[in-house]
């Protein structure tokens, strides 16, 4: 089978699981390499944050955040519908 150039269009998903901070992320791509679902690809420009090309497939496991060496560079956005409720405990 002959290989040819293939282009991808990041899929439109109802949620945005990850947010990168460009000033902090230095594009080391450790998150790309740890993601078991493989939803990220390296940015075409070296040093830039990866691109989330398959956001709908995110498992929300957080391994990308856990492995990131730059605190605050990557944020896991819990799906809004999955946000839970808590309240202040009132002591008698």
């Amino acid at each position, binding site marked *: 089978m002959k290989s040819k150039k293939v*282009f991808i269009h990041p899929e439109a998903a109802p949620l945005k699981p990850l947010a990168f901070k460009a000033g902090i992320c230095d594009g080391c791509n450790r998150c790309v390499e740890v*993601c078991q679902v*493989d939803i990220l690809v390296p940015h*075409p420009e070296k040093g*830039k944050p990866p*691109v989330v090309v398959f956001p709908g497939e995110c498992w929300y496991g957080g391994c990308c955040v856990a492995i990131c060496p730059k605190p605050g560079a990557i944020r896991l956005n819990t*799906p809004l519908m*999955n946000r839970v*409720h808590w309240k202040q*405990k009132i002591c008698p």
Partner: protein
Amino acid sequence: MKDHSCQCLEWPYPLLYDKVQKVTTDVLILGGGIAGCWAAIAAAKKGVLVALVEKGAIIRSGAGGSGCDHWESAATNPCSRITPEELTKAMIKAHLGYNNGISHYIECREGYDRLLDLERIGGKIRDTEDEFQGAEFRDEKTKFLFAYDYENKFTLRVWGTTFKPALAKECRRLGVSVFDRTMATSLLTEGGKQGARVVGATGVNCRTGEFITFQARATVLCMSRPTRIWLFSPGLPGISEFRPPQCTGDGHAMGWKAGVEFAMMEKSVKGEWSGIRSFPPYGTGNTHNTWYACNMVDADGREIPWVDRDGRILTDISQRYRPAPGQRLFLKGGGEPDIPNYEFQWPDILPVEKLMANGFKLPFYADLASMPEKERKAIWGLMVGEEGKTKIPILETYTEAGFDPKKHLLQSYGEGWKSGGFLPQERQFFGLPGGMVNDWRLRTNLEGLYAAGDQLFASNCHGHAAATGYYAGRHAAEYAKEAVAIIIDSKQAERERIRVYAPLKWADGIGWQELNMCISRIMQHYCGDIKSEELLTTGLGLLKDMQNNEAPQLSAKNPHELVRALEVLNVITNAEIVLNACLVRKASSKPLHFRRSDFPEIDPPEWNKLVTIKCEKNEVATGEKPLDYYGSLKRNYEFYNADYLEERQS
């Protein structure tokens, strides 16, 4: 920053659809999760060549890759007050016989050995920093922390986020050839014949599309249990199921096609977890699993009573962690049955109906603030934190959003630990589901093919995956040392290469999400809570139609989509196995959560057996095994593992 979220990108990896890589090894491990990494380590220690094939990356992949908060059935730890025989028999009895005596005895007998191995390679299994010094659940001498039954001490609280990177490093240190980002697609058999000796497998690289053939003397299947059969969201496939979305049960599907025998595939339970139907696992107030045995209060802050199995109100928290008067042990953890069993019933809060009758008001909340400090920290910080998928999504995210366990009450949703409500037809493979039949070497019915972890019938948790992985790896290596290498059948490999690449032919065919959604709809309608001959055969017919008409139009535009498309084909195969198994059992069954409207009698004595199915000459062949086919646990184990026992002793 330039926004690349809305523009076309060139595929960033080289495309190698025209390449075939040929690998020869002694032991081939398919699936690099917990079971697979342990299998690779065990085989490599035996001095044979090992190749490990993993769809993700072994550093964190698999259902247990992101963490583990408690290690069940470590019956041989020095503090345990129960023997492996006693615990295994209890686990079998709790499921009314429908359990894997062999694999769970291995778990009880060797699970603690694996914990010690983990510690040697960098995993954290004890409270070395004395964070919990003085806690009731801590053994001061060993610094082990226990969960659930503090009397019998067979479940350990562990720092499981340290485990997978340590295993990955050890695999590499031992010289295992790791094939990350590679999906195993089929088993290769001697002469290409179904039911013959397994002599290797095929795979496709998830990024480059390169096709790979693996020739091996022995193969160990270590992949996930089937998922995405009933539960699927085309928009949010990543959280359709409890397990990671790429854990689709590929091993079951390829095993079926090769002729592997399965048991308990008719069992499915009402959904336990799914991001599309419930809140994040372990992320809501409850009293189960990771949250056992947290205080709960009602909407007015009224404390919800805890009771033992006899309904006696428990007056202090310590009693929740102990068997009731006259009770030998209670079973609690990841795989407990939904069916209450008096003998092994754990202390729990009063049932919801009783609470309603006594004026307790919804919603209920977990009240960590009123727990003793060390119990609170063990739940929030240790277990929620070290359990898979909790450190970032729950512990860090909630903390950042202002949740303070000393001040806040966390709401409970749905029933208990399920964190949500499911419809009866929204089913999952959970709580000891179906899988491959094994012998005392963890070999399947096919020569050269071994199975471990979720691949086995009645599989369970992290400790089970680790113990059976290591066990299958060492037995496969022993076999490989003696077995003659067989050249793979090139025609069979070529047929598979054509099958694998078929979705690339279509620029504008059917997407994998649509097909998966269709399968889950068929299964909800035709293999839901209550089943019948006509429903099941109609469902099979619909799947067959899809197999013939829509599946050939599956389309993929890059290697990533190709892998997703191949997974859906496996989901179809797995759904077919389930439907066929359901057709074979002509009786309803409580422990199998199995109801047939045409055979309503529950567990008639003549059906108290394992029903087995396999594919033979491309037809479904059925069989049966007595529930206790494992025989004498201790005697059989010691007979088949004399070398291991000698090695551990020295």
